[in-house]
C-alpha cells in the first residue's frame, strides 16, 4: 500500500512534443483515481511515467516516500493492466500469472497457492492451462487483471483496460473492478477516455485536456463535485451522459437582479434571473459576454424549487421526442433557432410539436467566460470548500 505523488511533472517526447506539463497529483493510499480526457491529452503518458515506462522530463514522482524518477519499473512495486492486455502469447494462463512471481523468486508452493487463489477470485480457475489465443476477449481481460492482482503490488495502473470489450461486458467488468478494489484496497490509477467509466469508478477523477496544445489537468475532485461544479466549460462539456447545452449571451442588471440574456433585446430567446446569492459576484460582469451552461436534466416542465415563470423559464419549439423509459429526451429549438436538449420526466401525452415552456433549475446552471475553456463565473475554484469537506467526512 502506498501513496503516489506527482510534483510539477512534465513530459517532452523527442525533445519537441510536450505531451503533458504541470501535473500535480496526490493519490491517497488505497484511493481509486481515474484520469479521464479526450484522446491525446496525455493520460497514458502520465500513467506510463508512474509505471516507469517513460522517462520523466521534469518534476518528481514518488511512490510511498521514495522518489522513483530513476527507479526501474520492476523495482517500483507496481502492477499494470494494458489496453491490449499484453498477455504472453507463448505461455499458458497459469504461466502468465506466475511469471512475475517466479522472477521475484517466490517459493514454488507459494506461487501455486497465489495463482490458484487469484484465479478463483476472478473465476478463471478452469482456464489455467489454456493459451491466451484460446480465450475470449473477456477472459483475456480477466487474465490480465489476474496477472496484476496476483503480484500483490502496492499500486495498480490501468490503461483503458475495458476499451476492447463490448458494451455489456464493459459495464459488468467495470462493476467487478470496483468490487475488487473495495476488497483489495490497493492504490489505483485508472486511465479512460469514457466519462461514464470515470464517474462510476473513481473515488476522485482527474479531467485532462489537450485543448491548448499541451496536456494539462483541468480539474481534480470527486465525480459528483466535478459534475456539479465544473471549473470551466471544457469540464462541463466533457462530463455527463448527455451533453450540456451552451448558449452565448450577456449579463444585464434589471429590477435589482442580474439576468442572463441571449438573443435580441426586444425578443430575447433566453432571459433568466441569476440567484440572489450570486448577484454580488456577477455585478462586476454586467455587460460582459458570457456562456450559459445548462444540463438537459436541469430542465423540467414544472418548477423544481422557487422558480417562477417570469424569472426562470425558456420557451422552445419541440422538434423530436425520444422516450427513454423513466425520462424522455426532448430536442427543441429556441426562438433564435439554437438547439436545446431537455431530459424530463416521462409522460405519455407530451406534445411532439408546438411550443413548450421549460423551467430551469437555477441552482444548477453554469456561467462561463467565452471560449472552449472559459472559466466558470459561479464557482471558478470548483466545489465550495465546505461541500467537499462534508462529502469527505461521509466517506
Amino acid at each position, binding site marked *: 500500500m502506498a501513496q503516489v505523488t506527482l510534483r510539477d511533472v512534465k513530459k517532452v517526447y523527442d525533445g519537441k512534443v510536450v505531451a503533458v506539463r504541470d501535473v500535480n497529483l496526490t493519490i491517497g493510499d488505497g484511493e481509486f483515481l481515474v484520469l479521464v480526457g479526450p484522446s491525446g491529452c496525455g493520460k497514458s503518458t502520465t500513467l506510463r511515467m508512474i*509505471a*516507469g515506462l517513460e522517462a520523466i522530463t521534469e518534476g518528481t514522482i514518488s511512490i510511498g516516500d521514495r522518489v522513483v524518477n530513476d527507479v*526501474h*519499473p520492476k523495482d517500483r512495486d507496481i502492477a499494470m493492466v494494458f489496453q491490449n492486455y*499484453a498477455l504472453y502469447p507463448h505461455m499458458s494462463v497459469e504461466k502468465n500469472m506466475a511469471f512475475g512471481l517466479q522472477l*521475484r523468486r517466490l517459493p514454488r508452493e507459494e506461487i501455486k497457492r497465489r495463482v490458484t487463489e487469484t484465479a478463483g477470485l476472478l473465476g478463471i480457475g478452469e482456464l489455467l492451462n489454456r493459451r491466451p489465443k484460446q480465450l475470449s476477449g473477456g477472459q483475456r481481460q480477466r487474465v490480465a487483471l489476474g*496477472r496484476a492482482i496476483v503480484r500483490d503490488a502496492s499500486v495498480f495502473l490501468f490503461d483503458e483496460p475495458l476499451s476492447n470489450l463490448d458494451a455489456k461486458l464493459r459495464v459488468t467488468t467495470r462493476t467487478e473492478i470496483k468490487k475488487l478494489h473495495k476488497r483489495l484496497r490497493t492504490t489505483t490509477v485508472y486511465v479512460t477516455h469514457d466519462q461514464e467509466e470515470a464517474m462510476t469508478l473513481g473515488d476522485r477523477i482527474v479531467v485532462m485536456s489537450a485543448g491548448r496544445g499541451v496536456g494539462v489537468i483541468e480539474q481534480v475532485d470527486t465525480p459528483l463535485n466535478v459534475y456539479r461544479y465544473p471549473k470551466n466549460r471544457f469540464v462541463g462539456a466533457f462530463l455527463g451522459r448527455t451533453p450540456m447545452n451552451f448558449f452565448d449571451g450577456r449579463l444585464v442588471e434589471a429590477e435589482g437582479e442580474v439576468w442572463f440574456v441571449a438573443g435580441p433585446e426586444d425578443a430575447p430567446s433566453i432571459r433568466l434571473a441569476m440567484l440572489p446569492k450570486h448577484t454580488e459576484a456577477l455585478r462586476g460582469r454586467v455587460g460582459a459576454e458570457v456562456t450559459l451552461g445548462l444540463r438537459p436534466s436541469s430542465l423540467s416542465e414544472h418548477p423544481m424549487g422557487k422558480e417562477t415563470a417570469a424569472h426562470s423559464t425558456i420557451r422552445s419549439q419541440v422538434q423530436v421526442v425520444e422516450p427513454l423509459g423513466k425520462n424522455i429526451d426532448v430536442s427543441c429549438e429556441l426562438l433564435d433557432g439554437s438547439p436545446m436538449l431537455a431530459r424530463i420526466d416521462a409522460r405519455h401525452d407530451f406534445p411532439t410539436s408546438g411550443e413548450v415552456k421549460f423551467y430551469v433549475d437555477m441552482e444548477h446552471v453554469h456561467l462561463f467566460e467565452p471560449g472552449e475553456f472559459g472559466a466558470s463565473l459561479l464557482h471558478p475554484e470548483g466545489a465550495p470548500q465546505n461541500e467537499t469537506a462534508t462529502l469527505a467526512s461521509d466517506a
Partner: protein
Amino acid sequence: MSDRSPIESATGPLAKLARPLTFVALVLLGISFVVPFVWQVLISLSDRSEVDRLTETGFPSRISLDAYVRVFDQVPFAKYFFNSFFVAGWVTLLQVITCSMAAYAFSRIQWPGRDKVFLLYLGTLMVPGVVLMVPNFVVILGLGMFDDYTGLIIPAAFSAYGTFLLRQFMLTIPSSLDEAAAIDGAGHWRIFTQVILPLARPGLIVLAIFAFLFNYNSFFWPLILTQSENLRVLPVGLLQFNTTYGSDVPAIMAAALMAMIPPIMLFLLLQKYLVKGIQLGAVKG
C-alpha cells in the same frame, strides 16, 4: 458459393481463359526446372565412356552406380560432407545468436542514434562481396585463421541480412509485452530469452535455414581460405574431379546429387516456415 475464391468466381471470356493459361505456363515452368535435374541423374548413372554420346542416345545403355562408388574412392568425400556440415552448422548457430541479439538491440532498446547505426549496418549489404575479398583475406591471414576452421566460421558468424530479417520480425511483436515483462520484474536478458526469442521462433528458423543453405553452398571463400585437403568443404571438393583426375563427369554429377540431399531434406522439413519467412514484412495477419 461462398467458399469460391475471387479468381474462380470472376466471369467473362478472359477470366475463363486465365485459369487454363496459368496452368499451362506453370507446367512449362515446372518442366524447365525438372529436365536438367533428370539429365543430371541420367549422367550420374551412365558409364564414363558413354557420357559424350548421351546427347544422341538420350538414355544410358547400361545403368550403373559406379560413379557413386568412385566419388568415395577417389576423394575423401565423407570428410567434405563433414566439413560442410560442421562449418555451416556452426555458422548457422552463431548467426542465429548474434543476429537475434543485434536485432533485439535494434528493435527493442531505445538508444541515441540507433536507427542511423542500423542503416549504416544495412549499408554494408550494398558493398559487393568481391570488393571485400582481399581486405578480408588479409585480416584473416593476420589473425592466423588461414587454413583453419575458425577462418571459415568466424567471419560468417555475423550477418547484416540476418539482423535485418530478425529486426523486422521483432518489430511486429507489440512493445507492451516487453513493458509487461519489465513491470513483472524482467531485465533485458530475461525479456530477450523468455519473451522475445520464443515469439521470434518462426523468424529464427527462417534465418537458420537461409544461413545453413547459403553457407553449405559457399564456394569462393572456402576455396581461397583453405589449402589442406582435410579442410575442404563440398563445393570445393567437387572441384577435385575436374583437376586431379581429368573430367569425370558422371562422378561430378553423382557427387553433386548427393550434396544436394541435405538442403532438399531441410527444405521439405521446414518449408512451412520458409513460406512464413517470405511473408515477413508483407501484410501481417
